[in-house]
């Protein structure tokens, strides 16, 4: 799965600001760090502000500061501000009315498979807080010992 651009920008902003809660960064500052559109990011930051996760600081040297609880806010909380991942329903069945072909046996089976993936995605994003990601990100992409185990099979 791939997150929408606004969602990704929101996560970048929250994690960058929460990395040092005392630091103020403008949309331009964050956009420069991640090589993304400052205009798009400005709208994303307003959405994060409405959700209470950042506050804007006016005046010279102003910008945004992280105002959430890094130990209580999960990646899923941030994602849910911008999109509903797993809108296909869950592994136990489709919550909404059937879409194209979903009323057929094959459509229902495919929906079940998508539901499994969505459930795992939600559980994963919902289990990682902002504080946890910042604390453990040194190990992400490090290959982890698990890959060695897989290679030994």
């Amino acid at each position, binding site marked *: 799965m791939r997150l929408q651009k606004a969602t990704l920008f929101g996560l970048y902003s929250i994690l960058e600001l929460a990395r040092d809660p005392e630091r103020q960064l403008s949309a331009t500052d964050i956009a420069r760090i991640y090589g993304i559109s400052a205009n798009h990011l400005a709208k994303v930051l307003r959405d994060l502000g409405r959700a209470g996760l950042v506050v804007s600081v006016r005046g010279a040297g102003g910008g945004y500061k992280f105002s959430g609880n890094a130990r209580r806010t*999960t990646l899923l909380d941030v994602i849910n501000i911008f999109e509903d991942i797993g809108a296909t329903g869950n592994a136990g069945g489709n919550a909404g009315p059937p879409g194209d072909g979903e009323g057929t046996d094959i459509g229902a089976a495919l929906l079940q498979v998508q539901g499994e993936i969505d*459930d*795992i995605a*939600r*559980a*994963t994003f*919902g*289990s*990682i*807080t902002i*504080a*946890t990601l910042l*604390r*453990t990100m040194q*190990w*992400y992409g490090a290959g*982890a*010992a*698990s*890959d*060695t*185990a*897989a290679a*030994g*099979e």
Partner: protein
Amino acid sequence: MPETAASPAQAITIRAAGEDDCARVSDLDALITGLRKDDYWRQTFARFIGRGGRHVLIAENAGDGGASFAGFIIGEVRAWEFGSQPCGWIVAIGVEPEQRVHRIGERLFNAMCEKLEEDGVATVRTMIARADHLNMSFFRAQGMMAGPFIELEKPVAWKFEHEE
């Protein structure tokens, strides 16, 4: 720094379990899960206590009234399941509800990792229900992430027609 400093986390000591600890582990598990499994815990202790590659560790809080039970962790080395290299497994962990948020679980987890490392394994694994946000968040906070295996299951009553 002395282990008996004022902070609850600093007053915690970790030790290997004895058979006498079974009842407290069973009671805590029943409190957390709402399910009483005394036979299961008696069998688990019989299989784990004093066995190589298997560990039951107990966290105790050294308060004024003497050491009190604060939590437990159970782990073991498992080898070669579906081609996996020998790997440490966390079988269970529990911390007394009133003693949480003092990093006791983290102390237990780190102590178990040291034991498993001494046993010669390089990786530690566990299996958590997707709906168990508390434990999944805890293990994530210790740096655990998705491994190369995936859990699969089915009702044993499901059979293909030609097998009936």
